[in-house]
């Protein structure tokens, strides 16, 4: 991607993106020249898989798919599971709208993912790995296929890796374009050849995952952090970031900013610094809100811009999620934004559970009424009740996070929703309101 600019050390620190843009991603020689496979070689020589879990735990790596689960604990669970066969799965089904971090890594430094997966396999005792790649990522597929071939030819993949007696084979699987398959149990169902639907947890994949075997499922960005940590140590990794979220995080900055793109920054940076120093300021008007973490994330109002971005601030309201930051200026309508987000979830719900399958459609229908000037205050109150209900009762993370933007919007911009529902007016002049609320005979149920 052309959006990656030279590193700016005053704000950036590249760990996951260290080689992206600097090496030829289709050449294993380039990778080897940049410390490639050094961590793996050292590990195979030391033959001490426990040291990896210790290093990952001490470094404090947390899952970068959005949930922030401690990676060291996940690896420990799979490593200690007593089973003859285990699997390592890389969740590369990056489908969160506005999130491009995993794509950049796989397109720019595919060998680092392969090295990380071999290390993961050796650590937890798995000899087979799968990369579940988002179906639309054609360039990433091409580069990963090429990288797997070259790694096999160079003896890093396959039987008896580098004479260590360790085997590891890696398979690439392209998804068919379903957001739900980013949910780890739905991903496993899909990989097994079944319909991509989430499964009950427990049992967690670490106990019973792919084909019922203990399975380590990690995001791309999480995995590629492991080789540099093994190489330079946990203290080196913890040199940036916060106590609860050490290290760095890749942020995809988009929307109304003067510079859009992907940047790797230490955890704890404020949204304001990202917008001002990386994004070079808001474009086209004053800042209205930032939608963080993709469609499943939340809304950061202007008064929260100085809060640190990390996994723990999520409790205060700032959702980091996948690291996407969508900046909206004053000319954007929050009801319109919410409607677009809900249309996404309506289309992506798998249909397994009632609240998500029907709830997202009902919420979208009610929101559409608001944007068309046909809404009522009664619709607004139902939106709030139902949004909270869908969040509370859905089967998996998709339904649980689908109402986030709606509920955050109501929390921070209630007046704007009321203007749409009661006065049939869009304060940002985005929504094409009908001339009259009574332009067509309303459904009886809409009379508030």
């Amino acid at each position: 991607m052309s959006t990656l600019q030279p590193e700016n050390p005053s704000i950036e620190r590249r760990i996951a993106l260290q080689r992206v843009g600097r090496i030829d991603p289709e050449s294993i020689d380039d990778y080897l020249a940049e410390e490639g496979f050094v961590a793996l070689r050292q590990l195979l020589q030391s033959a001490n898989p426990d040291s990896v879990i210790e290093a990952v735990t001490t470094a404090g790596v947390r899952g970068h798919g959005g949930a922030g689960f401690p990676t060291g604990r996940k690896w420990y669970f799979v490593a200690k599971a007593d089973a003859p066969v285990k699997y390592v799965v890389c969740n590369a089904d990056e489908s969160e709208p506005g999130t491009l971090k995993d794509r950049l890594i796989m397109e720019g430094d595919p060998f680092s993912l392969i090295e990380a997966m071999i290390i993961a396999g050796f650590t937890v005792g798995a000899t087979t790995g799968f990369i579940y790649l988002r179906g639309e990522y054609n360039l990433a597929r091409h580069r990963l296929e090429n990288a797997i071939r070259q790694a096999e030819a160079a003896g890093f993949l396959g039987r008896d890796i580098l004479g260590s007696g360790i085997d590891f084979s890696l398979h690439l699987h392209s998804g068919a374009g379903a957001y739900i398959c980013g949910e780890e149990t739905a991903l496993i169902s899909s990989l097994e050849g079944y319909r991509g639907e989430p499964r009950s947890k427990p049992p967690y994949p670490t106990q019973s995952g792919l084909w019922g075997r203990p399975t380590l499922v990690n995001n791309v960005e999480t995995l590629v952090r492991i080789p540099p940590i093994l190489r330079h140590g946990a203290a080196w990794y913890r040199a940036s970031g916060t106590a609860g979220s050490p290290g760095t995080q890749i942020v995809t900055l988009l929307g109304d900013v003067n510079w859009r793109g992907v940047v790797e920054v230490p955890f704890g940076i404020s949204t304001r610094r990202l917008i001002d120093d990386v994004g070079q300021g808001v474009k086209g008007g004053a800042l209205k809100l930032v939608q963080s973490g993709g469609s499943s994330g939340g809304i950061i109002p202007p008064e929260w811009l100085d809060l640190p971005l990390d996994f723990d601030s999520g409790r205060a309201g700032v959702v980091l999620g996948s690291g996407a930051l969508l900046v909206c200026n004053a000319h954007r309508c929050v009801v319109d934004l919410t409607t677009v987000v809900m249309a996404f979830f309506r289309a992506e719900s798998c249909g397994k559970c009632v609240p998500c399958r029907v709830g997202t459609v009902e919420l979208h229908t009610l929101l559409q009424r608001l944007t068309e000037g046909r809404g009522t205050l009664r619709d607004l109150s139902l939106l709030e009740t139902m949004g909270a209900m869908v969040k509370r009762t859905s089967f998996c993370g998709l339904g649980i996070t689908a109402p986030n933007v709606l509920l955050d919007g109501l929390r921070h911009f209630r007046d704007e929703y009321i203007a749409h529902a009661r006065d049939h007016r869009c304060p940002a002049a985005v929504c094409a309101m009908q001339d009259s609320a009574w332009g067509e005979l309303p459904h009886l149920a809409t009379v508030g």
Partner: protein
Amino acid sequence: MSTILLTIDDRKVHGESGETILSVARQHGIPIPTLCQLQGASTFGGCRLCLVEVEGIAHPVSACNTPIKAGQRVTTQSPALRADRQMVLELLFAERNHYCAVCVQNGDCELQSAAAQAGMDHVRCPYLSPSLPVDASHAQYVLDHNRCILCMRCVRVCAEVEGAHTWQMAGRGIEARLVADNGVPWGESTTCTSCGKCVHLCPTGALYRKGASVAEMQKKRGFLLRILEGRELGRTGEEPTDDFLVPTVEIRS
């Protein structure tokens, strides 16, 4: 296996490790509403009606797939749970075309009784009123998509008990549809054994036996004249020429 002690609705109850909250509650006579749950088939967890509150967990959990834990404190009835269950049912009624008055299953429908028990007396959200087909291609049975709640009971029992794997789910989200043999009319399915398990386990009127639905009964109004004709023949000692459609009627002169 080991015995686990827990509390459900302030009652001290016990179960074996690996059991779910739903199964332990049922063994102790504590009712929890369900729709997709089917004893004898795998757990699905999609209907969300069996939601219960567990102390220490912020959101409600489904009782059908949550294993019991020692010391767990479970609440099966609360105003919040009642409201959530009511809205689950409202969403189901709004999703497709559930008109009890003209439904084959009226009076013996699990969706209808779940709504009655939950006190769901109206639907607050817009009815989606989709235009859905009825598949009457099978010789004995009918699939009415208008009544389907996607509980997957038919899919599970067909795969797990009958072993035919006729039923599948196609499409996603609100477009999800039950399909036979990956999308052929039911009557053209080469895997269906016509065993009828799916029909009898369907909680609503989505799957039913032909001849059972509203206005499908055909009355045999010709019987009266034929009885009278039979009497006439009896009197004259001739054998009846017509086959009598009401065979149990005894003819006495």
